[in-house]
Every structure is written in C-alpha cells, then in structure tokens.
C-alpha cells in the first residue's frame, strides 16, 4: 500500500560553507494494506519527519514514496490534492489540531464540504454518524474545542479524518498528550475502526509497549536511520540491534513490575 524507497531528508544552512544536517538517512519501508506499521524512536530521531514525508507534507531531498502504486513524490500539485482524501493524518496535540473558533459540528463538517462529499442536508445526517463512530455523544456537536476534554478533542480530530473515508492514516503520537485511561480508549477505538474499514496505519510513538499492542510490523528509528524492522513478535522475542534490545528490555522490565493484568 505504502512504499518508501531510499528516502533522504537533509537541511542545509550557511551560504559559503554549507553545513548539512541529515534528518532522514536512506530509509526504505513498506506497509501492507490493512496492516499497521509501528514506527518507534526517541524524539529527534526523525519519526515525525518520516511520517510527513510519507504524506508529502514535507518534500524529501531524494528518494521515492509510492502510495497504491502512485509516485507521490513526483505528483503535480493538483494530482496530489486529488490524492489527499485517501491519505490522512492524526496529529499529536489535539489542542492545536482543531480550530478553536469552530464548533465540533463545523470541524467535522469542514472536510465534507471542501470535498463536496455531501450536500448540506446529507451533512446533517453524516455528522451524528461520524461522532457515534468515534464514540462521542451527538449533543457534543454544538460545543467548542475548549469546552471538551483532551480525549474528546482527539476523537473529534479522528472523526474529521474518517469523514473522508481514507485508506491510509498516519497517526503521529495520537495519545502523547492524553491520560493513561484515555490513551487506552483512543487506541482501542483506532484499532476497532481500522478493522471495520480495513485501514492501513503508520503508527508513530516513542512508547514501545503501545507500539507492540498496535502494530503488525515494527520499524525502529535512531538518528534518522531505520536500525531494525520486522514482525512485532520477532522484534520482541529476538531483537538484533543493541538499541532495539535496550528498548525491549526497558519495556519488559516495567511490565514485570506491574504484574500482568491486575483485573
């Protein structure tokens, strides 16, 4: 479904003496349809940059991104725009992802209007449906973002994305700003919807335990490079790279302490 080959991204500064900072160093990845690729790494390792390159929200310096066989990297602006509803993103911070001056209703209606996916009357039917899909009460539609909780905001952001019926979603640390019990709710919801709609996900997180629960395959990123990738059980049972091994050991240590399932 999604294929990245030899993607590089560097930033240059200086006029006479060029100084180059490499953010993404020769990354090749692929995600199969209906599967989740978990991208894990510390902040600054380039995971967010890579997620955005996958959607061409950032231009890569070299390399190719293919989405469903389409060469995204070389697409014209108008062709890229036509592709946008099929590939979407859920951002890390729901506070800044929603327009504070739009009600929940208007937030969710906006993508439908822009893409002419529904007439004015249809929209009124679609919005309660979409809110229900993400587990929100329809009467929340009249509220503004500041009147609802962080978890509810992230659900609204997800409803906005799902309004377009995308095939591929980049979820960039969607629960980093949320509380523990809310995180579990949002991740459960995301998995649920993924199965219902056969979505392909690129799930970005710094938390290996969350990645384990969400992903079919895992790619471990360190300093702009993919240092290891593989099927989730294999990464956990037999990590090859020392950095991955350290992450896995840390995740296992915290599990041992809290016991399995306290319920």
């Amino acid at each position, binding site marked *: 479904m999604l294929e990245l080959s030899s993607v590089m991204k560097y930033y240059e500064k200086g006029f006479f003496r060029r100084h180059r900072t490499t953010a993404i160093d020769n990354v090749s990845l692929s995600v199969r349809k209906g599967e989740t690729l978990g991208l894990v790494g510390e902040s600054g390792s380039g995971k967010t940059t890579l997620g955005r390159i996958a959607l061409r929200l950032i231009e890569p310096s070299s390399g190719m991104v293919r989405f469903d066989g389409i060469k995204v990297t070389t697409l014209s602006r108008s062709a890229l725009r036509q592709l946008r509803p099929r590939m979407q993103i859920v951002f890390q911070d729901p506070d800044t992802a929603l327009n504070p001056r739009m009600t929940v209703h208007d937030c969710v209606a906006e993508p439908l209007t822009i893409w002419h996916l529904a007439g004015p009357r249809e929209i009124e039917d679609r919005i309660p449906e979409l809110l229900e899909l993400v587990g929100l009460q329809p009467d929340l539609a009249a509220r503004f973002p500041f009147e609802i909780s962080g978890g509810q905001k992230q659900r609204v952001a997800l409803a906005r994305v799902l309004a377009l019926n995308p095939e591929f979603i980049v979820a960039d640390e969607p629960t980093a700003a949320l509380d523990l019990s809310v995180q579990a709710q949002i991740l459960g919801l995301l998995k649920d919807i993924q199965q219902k709609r056969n979505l392909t996900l690129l799930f970005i997180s710094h938390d290996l335990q969350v990645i*384990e629960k969400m992903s079919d395959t895992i790619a471990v990123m360190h300093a702009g490079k993919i240092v290891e990738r593989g099927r989730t059980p294999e990464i956990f049972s037999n990590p090859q790279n020392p950095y991955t091994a350290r992450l896995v050991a840390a995740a296992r240590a915290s599990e041992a302490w*809290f016991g399995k399932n306290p319920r």
Partner: protein
Amino acid sequence: MMSLISIAGLSVRFATRSECVRAVDTVDLEIARGDHLALIGESGCGKTVLGMAVMGLLPENALIRGTIRYRERDLLQAEDAEMQRIRGKEIAMIMQNTASSLNPVIPVGIQVSEPILLHRILPAKAVQAEAIRLLGAMGFDLPERAACRYPHEFSGGMQERILVAIALACRPDIVIADEPTSGLDAEVKSQILHLIKKQMADRTLLLITHDLGTARFLCTRVAVMYAGEIVEEGPAHDLLSLPLHPYTQGLLASLPSAGLHPIPGMSPSPSHLPDGCRFCSRCPSATARCSTEHPRMSVRGARRVRCFHYA
C-alpha cells in the same frame, strides 16, 4: 511517627460567575520526614492544586478550607512574609513545564543563585561558587560555562536539571516535584529520575505525576486522587501490585503492558460532582448504594481506600 506535613480536611474551590469548581475536596494526608510520597491521578483531578496549596501559591480567587500543619504552624494561616521565608528555603518546588519556569533573558547561573541570595543562606561572595557547585552536582560537565549560558541554549533534559538545581539551592527539607519528567525522552527521563532519586535520599519528596512508572521508581508511598479526593493510599509496592480501589485497578489495567483495557466513560466535571461515589458511573462493581451515598475512607492496615466494598 511524627508527620512533617499534616494536611487535614483540605478543600480548594474556585468560584466562577456561574458555578463553583471543587478542585480539591476534604483531603487528609500525612507526610512524614523522609517520606517519598507520589500523588497520582489524571489531569484535572486536583493534584497540582494540592501541591500549590502547600506552597501557598494558589490564586486570590481560591476558597481554601482545612489546615496544612508544618512545624507547629498552619501554612494556610501564615502571613505572606512568613510564607516567603519558608517557600524555597524549607519547602521548594520543581514546577511543571520546564521551558516556561526559567527566565529566558537571565543566565542560568544567576537563576540558580537567586534563591540563595534571597534567603541569605551564604555570604554574597560565596554564592557564585555555590551555584557552580550545584550545577556540577546536577551533571553539567563544565558548570562554570553552563552558568553563563541562557536557558534556550540547553536541551529539555538539561533545563530540567537547572530547575532541580534551583529547587535544591537552599537545601530545603521538602521538595514538591510536579511532573518533573513530562515531555522528556525515555533515556533522558531515566537520567533525570536517577538524579532526583539521588538528591532526595535524605529529603522529603511529594511527587505529583500521572506516570505510574515514575511514581514507583521514586516513591515509597502512593496516594491516588480522583475528581478532587484521595481514593486510595498506601505503600507503593502493595498499592501498585494489588490495587484495592476500582479506579486504581482500572488505571493499572489501562497500562499498555496490562493490555490497554480502558476505563469506560470520563471523570465527572469538578463543577458537577455526583452525590454518591465519584467513580460510580465508570465502576464495574458499582451497587445501588454507590450512586446515592458518598463513601468514607476505610483503613486497612497501612492502607486507606474510599470504597464501600472495603468498608
């Protein structure tokens, strides 16, 4: 054991034009000398407000009831001048949000010196050397150089170290740390936690966090807050390995390692709290009594829990 800080019946309310927000509700908490107590709970449960109440840093519009006894006096009745003598010198706080807690236009060495000068701990001549010593103890390789730099020249982890240095500058008995590692990477977080643990060895710590891993690493006791009140309290190991209150059980079950089982529903709004148990609407084992009657704390050995199932 004599308590160093004894909080009794503490309630903090904020009156807005239309409603009354009950941020903290009748909290009783004893903190003994040398205790490392973690206050855990979700955002909005009132844990930061509780910390601010101890520091005497609540805004004017806060309505405060109850007592916070510290060394024969009630901090809530203390005059401003007296609070200023205590704050920073005897009770210090590591604030949440590193970047906004440091002054961007003052070199960090001066910011570390400030509390020492203010409380006249050392003669003015010795202050600079002490600030550099503190930065060195916090793990700065070249503390003399670091002292001359401005906050933006440091990474998040290094800024956190500066905040710890400022909090420890006057060698306080009690440190209140509010989410000291939020926003830091796993590895940097672990370094900061080790630093705090080392520095707190002979001090009293009140840690405010929503991170169970941080709580169990730094603390020997844990108090769980939900919707403004303490619902469970006890030794860290017992409480986290065998939680009693259904909320604590739910919190532990929603950890990724326990399988990400969410607690259904949401916390009640602090301006519209239910009459019965505040966790009732989300509780898997709620009974008819839970929705009408508010449970009191029941004592079970070294532990306390606010739930009818243990009354």
